[in-house]
């Protein structure tokens, strides 16, 4: 279902209407991740050194032969394995990318470059290349560094030069923005970051690398200025990570503070031991580079395989955009909220407590933001248990530990379409508290809305995603088609039950469903015609119609009047769509041809009745209105109304106008009369008149009853009995003859 919403000119709004019609406006559901789309983190170029020295062992030993204990004694355990510097660099950079792609599946791009005697560019800035699987496949093809390769012709410099060239290349996002901005295309910035994983010789060597990058940027910027597919680099951050084996002294000094080398380039140097030190360094870097923060979910109860009856409590650490902690950061609660330093680095994590979900109810929480997460330790057992639990459609509320002991739910974990989001819930007082009920507002007292029908309408107008290329012949996007469908479906759509006859009739359904369509087939037209014939048949058999009878104490309008109302309404519906196609036109023609009475006959009858009316009115003024009041068409109706007005003035006092809404089964049926016949030119009868009419009738009961009614059978009394006795059928004939 799609509705549109636009602001109207104030002059158009009648104050009475919006007095209580209020919407509430919680904060936006998903928050942006920063005010600059093309910040430094838009492009990240990884340069990994593939020179022979990277094949050196990290000297971190891993025991992989763990089963010796349970084995027979004679077996000699295998020697532990150790990763090379290269392997350490690769797996840590892959971990960096994994977290990045989990939290930012779009907009944040990685270009992965491997450098030895030549440059291996493993992927491009294209969005489809941004996943770890592709990168792993490409890395497998490169393989580990060859220790026998000539070290003289190998250098990480090739990679750095390629990285600068690559940063100049325009991304799909930059291209799209530039195309849409047209004249102001220069607002699209080109910034980027180079993360270089290498084993440097000395501080001088590092300096040389930095100088080389700066020179290349200046060179490339000149080239880029003259190209459409290239953009000069405005800002570049160089992050050099020097990796050295464990147990060795570093030859490169750490320089974590950003050093500004030029207006375009800043640089920092991290000197790290291989192995887990490197892993935690890159984990810290990915958080710094992409504004991430860490949350540890604590007290997750998990059943042990061995001890199915007990459950142990586990912790799982998640990374996400730091805005999810905004409330803590701003209120200075960060430390109070159980923030501690974790072993995974120097960074801080906020501890939130697991609340065992009680129900699986789909509840709309007052959510002020949703942020993608990535588990720090993705394939550990507690992590995968938690993520699988969430991916299976469950939600977990998270509680903020407070010293005072009061329980505050501040976040919720839940998945949407295979992605897990950390939702921020509003834990303070809401400005939307205690809103008035909609029934207190405009239209709130009406009780016979076609709620079920509109529900059906909404289901028919539900939206579904279409592939990007789906634009119809008229060049409309799917959303435009949805809006035009809504327009068609609502051309004639009475909002309350007492305003309509045809929509209360099962027999009309096939036609009503088809006529709103954009195109009709011949078969559809046939179905519509069948519906019409069916109605004709019903009329012939004088089947009752679901016309409201409220306002008249008797049976309501006579059968032929009922059908006339029904046909008129049906015509209104079909006329609203007659312009759509020639086939729609045929349906209208069918109705015009089939409907009960040809207009001439109708006209004649009308005038005949009018005569009767007049006689009625003059002779038995005010008598048995409900008997005759609704039996004829508009002009007659008018007469009745006039008479009612007379009555009203006679009765004068309209006492209690009950405040309580009318029950559904006693709807004011007269509204149907009032709204439908389009030929009624004298303007609609207001609800007030109808209401007072009803009250008048109620009051009339308090008077002495009329003789005619007293002697009636089935609430019907034969009129003019004396005339009949005297003249037989003359009256009627007279009536006609006078014309």
């Amino acid at each position, binding site marked *: *279902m799609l*509705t*549109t*919403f*636009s*602001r*109207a000119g104030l002059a*158009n709004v009648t104050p*009475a*209407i919006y007095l209580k*019609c*209020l*919407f*509430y*406006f919680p904060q*936006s*559901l*998903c928050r942006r991740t920063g*005010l*600059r*789309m093309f910040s430094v983190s838009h492009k990240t170029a990884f340069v990994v050194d593939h020179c022979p020295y990277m094949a050196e062992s990290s000297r971190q030993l891993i025991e*992989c032969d763990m089963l010796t204990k349970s084995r027979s004694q004679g077996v000699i355990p295998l020697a532990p*394995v150790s990763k090379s510097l*290269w*392997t350490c660099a690769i797996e840590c950079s892959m971990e960096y990318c994994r977290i990045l792609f989990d939290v930012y599946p779009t907009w944040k791009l990685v270009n992965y470059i491997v450098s030895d005697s030549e440059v291996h560019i493993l992927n491009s800035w294209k969005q*489809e290349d941004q996943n770890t*699987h592709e990168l792993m496949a490409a*890395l*497998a093809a490169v*393989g580990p560094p060859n220790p026998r390769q000539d070290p003289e012709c190998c250098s990480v410099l090739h990679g750095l030069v390629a990285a600068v060239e690559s940063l100049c290349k325009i991304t799909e996002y930059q291209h799209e923005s530039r195309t849409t901005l047209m004249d102001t295309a220069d607002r699209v*910035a080109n910034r980027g970051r180079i993360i270089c994983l290498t084993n440097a010789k000395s501080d001088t060597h590092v300096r040389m690398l930095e100088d080389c990058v700066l020179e290349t940027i200046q060179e490339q910027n000149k080239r880029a200025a003259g190209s459409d597919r290239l953009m000069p680099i405005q800002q570049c951050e160089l992050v050099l990570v020097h990796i050295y084996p464990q147990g060795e002294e570093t030859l490169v000094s750490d320089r974590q503070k950003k050093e500004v080398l030029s207006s375009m380039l800043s640089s920092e140097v991290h000197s790290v031991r291989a192995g*887990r030190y490197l*892993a935690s360094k890159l984990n810290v870097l990915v958080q710094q580079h992409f504004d991430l923060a860490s949350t540890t979910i604590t007290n997750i109860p998990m059943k042990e395989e061995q001890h199915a009856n007990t459950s142990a409590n586990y912790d799982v650490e998640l990374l996400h955009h730091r805005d999810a902690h905004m409330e803590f950061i701003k209120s200075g609660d960060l430390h109070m909220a159980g923030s501690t330093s974790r072993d995974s680095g120097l960074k801080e994590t906020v501890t939130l407590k697991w609340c065992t979900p009680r129900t699986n109810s*789909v509840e709309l929480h007052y959510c*002020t933001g949703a942020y*993608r997460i990535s588990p720090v330790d993705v*394939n550990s057992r507690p992590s995968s248990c938690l993520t699988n639990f969430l991916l299976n459609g469950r939600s977990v509320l998270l509680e903020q530990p407070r010293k005072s002991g009061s329980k505050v739910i501040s976040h919720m974990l839940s998945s*949407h379409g295979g*992605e897990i989001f950390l939702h921020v819930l*509003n*834990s*303070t007082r809401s*400005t939307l508290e205690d*809103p008035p*009920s909609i029934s207190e507002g*405009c*239209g709130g007292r*009406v009780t016979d809305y076609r709620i079920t029908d509109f*529900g059906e309408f909404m289901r028919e*107008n*539900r939206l*579904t*995603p279409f592939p*990007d290329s789906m634009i119809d012949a008229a060049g409309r996007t*799917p959303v435009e*088609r*949805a809006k035009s469908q809504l*327009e068609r479906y609502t051309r004639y*759509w009475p909002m309350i039950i007492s305003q309509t006859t045809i929509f209360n009739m099962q027999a009309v359904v096939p036609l009503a469903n088809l006529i709103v369509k954009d195109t009709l087939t011949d078969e559809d037209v046939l179905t519509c015609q069948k519906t019409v014939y069916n109605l004709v048949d019903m009329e012939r058999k004088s089947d009752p119609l679901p016309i409201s009878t409220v306002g008249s104490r008797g049976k309501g309008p006579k059968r032929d009047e009922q059908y006339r109302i029904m046909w008129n309404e049906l015509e209104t519906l079909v006329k609203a769509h007659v312009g759509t196609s020639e086939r729609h036109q045929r349906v209208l023609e069918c109705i015009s041809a089939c409907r009960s009475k040809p207009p001439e006959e109708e006209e004649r009858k009308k005038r005949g009745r009018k005569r009767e009316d007049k006689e009625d009115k003059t002779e038995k003024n005010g008598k048995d209105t409900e008997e005759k009041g609704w039996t004829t068409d508009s002009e007659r109706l008018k007469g009745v109304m006039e008479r009612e007005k007379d009555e009203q003035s006679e009765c004068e006092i309209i006492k209690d106008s009950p405040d309580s809404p009318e029950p559904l089964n006693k709807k004011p049926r007269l509204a149907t009369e009032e709204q439908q016949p389009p030929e009624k030119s004298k303007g609609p009868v*207001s609800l007030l008149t109808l209401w007072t009419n009803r009250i008048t009738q109620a009051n009339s009961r308090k008077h002495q009853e009329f003789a005619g009614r007293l002697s009636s059978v089935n609430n019907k009394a034969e009129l003019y009995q004396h005339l009949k006795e005297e003249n037989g059928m003359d009256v009627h004939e007279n009536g006609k003859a006078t014309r």
Partner: protein
Amino acid sequence: MPTVVLLDSSLSMTRPVSVEGSEEFQRKNLAVHGLTMLFEHMATNYRLEFTSLVAFSSLWELLVPFSRDYNTLQEALNNLEDYDKTCLEAALQGVSNVVQQEWGTSCPCQVVLVTDGALGIGRGSLRHSLQTVKQRVDDKKFPLPFPFPSKLYVMCIANAEELQATDSMDNLEQLINLNGGEGQIYTMEGPLCLKSVQSMFGKLIDQAYSPFHAVLRCGNLTSDVQVFPRPEPVTIDEEVDPIPKTVQTEGDEIGTGATDDTEEETSTNQMAGKSPNFCVLLHGSLKVEGMVALVQLGPDWFGMLYSQADSKKKSNLMMSLFDPGSEPLPWLGRMSQLGPASDAAENPYGEDDSKSPFPIQPKHKRSYAQNVTVWIKASGLQTDVQKILRNAKKLPEKTQTFYKELNRLRKAALAFGFWELLKSVAELLERECTLLPDSAHPDAAFQLSHAAQQLKLASSGDSKYAVFEQNITPMLTDFSGGGGADRI
């Protein structure tokens, strides 16, 4: 958006204003008059807005906590007493505390400061506060910018010339700048009198408290609505698109006001309650069906409408705005690509409503939804090796799982250039082969030595055997027949 009214009740506010008429006003009377006007406007147009009243001089006092009861606010205003000198910094700190205690730091608030522009002398004066603003230690920081999103409106019961004669105007401007430029200074035009104070507060009302009227449209069904609180403009990207987005304002005209407005004044309300309104119909159906309706607020800006009930079972139509953009909720896909379900070849919701085209799955699974291999911790690697060995012991029953785990390890080792591991696991498998008990199935030995050999070949880096996408397949033996896993 809640409002805090911060009213200067220092002695200088009792200074009389020179008027030609007989009545003599104090500046305070003018302030009260202006605020009365604001409160009256709120009571009529913003009845759901929370407002609190804080008076300050050298100390500050919360006279009325956040409330929708404008009578109480008015009463407190009328009973205001006079105190000593102006000390704005403490008062602003007070406002900051009051707001945070009530609403936290994410709820935007408006602060209306009403003062005569005499901002104190010496210590505690605004001038002094601003001069020392850069020399603060952490726990004595200047309260601005407020930690919550805010607008600071300064209502001066003084005219601009008067303020410019001293440094008051400069100081106030500095105050707004400290709040990130969020706010505005209003001064009185012409002589200080009831009329000019009215016009000043009138400007504030137009700027900050104008009700938001709109038309909700669903095809030909429409309804006039007021949106509360007022949606504020949003800046999407300060660089690419620096103009804040506002909810569509173009006069998209539609025939509104179709209800009988010929009725008498007194019955108008009743009639409004009784004539059908599309909002009520929509709300009822959304509630019954448990659905939400998408609503478009402008080009590339969407939100949703739904029925929200409070604890007392009172429900109303609620609107949530999404971030402006073409794809605000990833699991709905691009908004412009959402079309009528009836246009689809097959009903995406299923004939019996059992299916849904949502949520849209991302093209690539997230790391936690796929079986990724991470060996950063030694335990990760050890677990993977053990899984292989465990399955190796249960060959040939577990042939499929054995090779699945083996290939997972092989892929990761190839990508990480960790050939040493492949050799090591090959040796483990060979040893496992020699340790097989006599009762073991003959196929087990074949599979183990086949796997070991394949790993060794891969670890040689030979391009024929080290292809990433190629898996080691179970060896076809006389015993394995149609595949080991099928047998018991």
